[in-house]
């Protein structure tokens, strides 16, 4: 397969994947919830794109996913756009310039990106607003959700790896 065709296939598959994961998540069809832990599959998906593709691809994917999420969430409609654009840019730079693209390094990034997402949401929407939250929020929801989200990076990692090897 020539380079142009391969890029088109990768972009097409990723757009379909983003839409599919988005609809699964926000229509309530399948949130993969275990107990109170709700994984955000769009984070590992965005990260896998950032790790494997060029600067324009990760920026577009981050922007697209962020805006798509902002159109569906009930909180402030800028958090996801900003987070995903900045997060994907940083992760891509870290993955390509400082770390290897191996699974171990990428998993660390996944854990970091998931943690930053959930923790920033807590800071912006609860802590800074003065909304009281007890320890159960962290123990039952936040930490399990971070770990569960990070684990979902593994299938996306191998999927993107296969895609780039076409």
């Amino acid at each position, binding site marked *: 397969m020539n380079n142009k065709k391969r890029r088109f296939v990768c972009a097409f598959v990723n757009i379909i994947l983003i839409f599919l994961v988005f609809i*699964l998540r926000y229509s309530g069809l399948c949130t993969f919830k275990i107990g109170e832990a709700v994984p955000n599959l769009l984070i590992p998906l965005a990260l896998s794109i950032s790790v494997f593709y060029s600067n324009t691809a990760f920026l577009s994917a981050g922007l697209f996913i962020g805006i798509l999420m902002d159109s569906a969430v009930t909180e402030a409609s800028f958090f996801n756009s900003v987070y995903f654009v900045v997060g994907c840019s940083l992760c891509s730079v870290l993955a390509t310039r400082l770390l290897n693209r191996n699974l171990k390094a990428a998993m660390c990034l996944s854990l970091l990106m998931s943690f930053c997402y959930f923790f920033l949401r807590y800071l912006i929407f609860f802590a800074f607003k003065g909304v009281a939250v007890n320890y159960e929020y962290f123990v039952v929801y936040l930490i399990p959700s971070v770990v569960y989200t990070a684990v979902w990076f593994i299938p996306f990692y191998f999927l993107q790896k296969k895609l780039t090897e076409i």
Partner: protein
Amino acid sequence: MRFFLRSKEFKKIIAIVLVVIAVSVTAGVIGGFMAPQASVLGAVAAPFQKLGNTIVQSFSEMSANFNSAAKLNAENDKLKTEIDALRGQLVDYQSALTDNEFYKEYLEIKDINPDFKFCPALVTTKDPDDVFGGLTVDAGSLQGVSLFDPVITDSGLVGYISQVGVSTSKVTTLLSTSLVCGAYDSRTNDAGALSGTVELAAEGKTRFYNLPRTCSVAIGDIVVTSGSGIFPDKLIIGTIDNISHDPLSSSLYATITPAVNFDELKNVMIITSFSGQGNELIGEK
């Protein structure tokens, strides 16, 4: 790394990031409005979200039909064709009946409150990250929806419109800590304030507080809106299922189970206009 930081590509990325942040933060600071890019993409994504919901409903209807068909086939082999035809008619009939019931309930509300103007809406997305059960509906400024419009079902109050887009809007539910409104016990007329907490929201409940110690509210009483702020009066909020002493003051507070089941919300009505409509929440907690 240094080369990358000095490259044109990096400068372009920084420029795009800054533009997105500027537009989004401006929309966030102004408040009440969805960021333009989220609003536009929300309008584009709405049909797909509806498709997702339709698939969910179709799956549940399909499985229900499959089960009933299997039973009927075992019992009534000879009448299979006839039953199939009748079932087709029954589905149409039930669908019409459900629609009728749905609109009849609203008609009753409309009869009691002739000043209400309704805008029907379908729940397109439910935010799984929002502990307060926030949702998005497929009606926006094009349908006449505006900020702080109350959202109800035939069972009772759902919440209010917290962000308005072109063809979609976001609803903050009555489980949220952002919603503060006046309410009273419909049996005893004891008044208090209503607002959620994170802990109660996880159980699908909300809090009716600032009740005087001398009040006579009881478990099972129905709590309704008092008409101050953004909600019209006498909208059913829910029933009291627990009463406790507030540790921070000398008053009492009650835990309320909302009349609306937020997990099963599909169709809602937005009250776009009513007499005495306020345009801001009572206050911040």
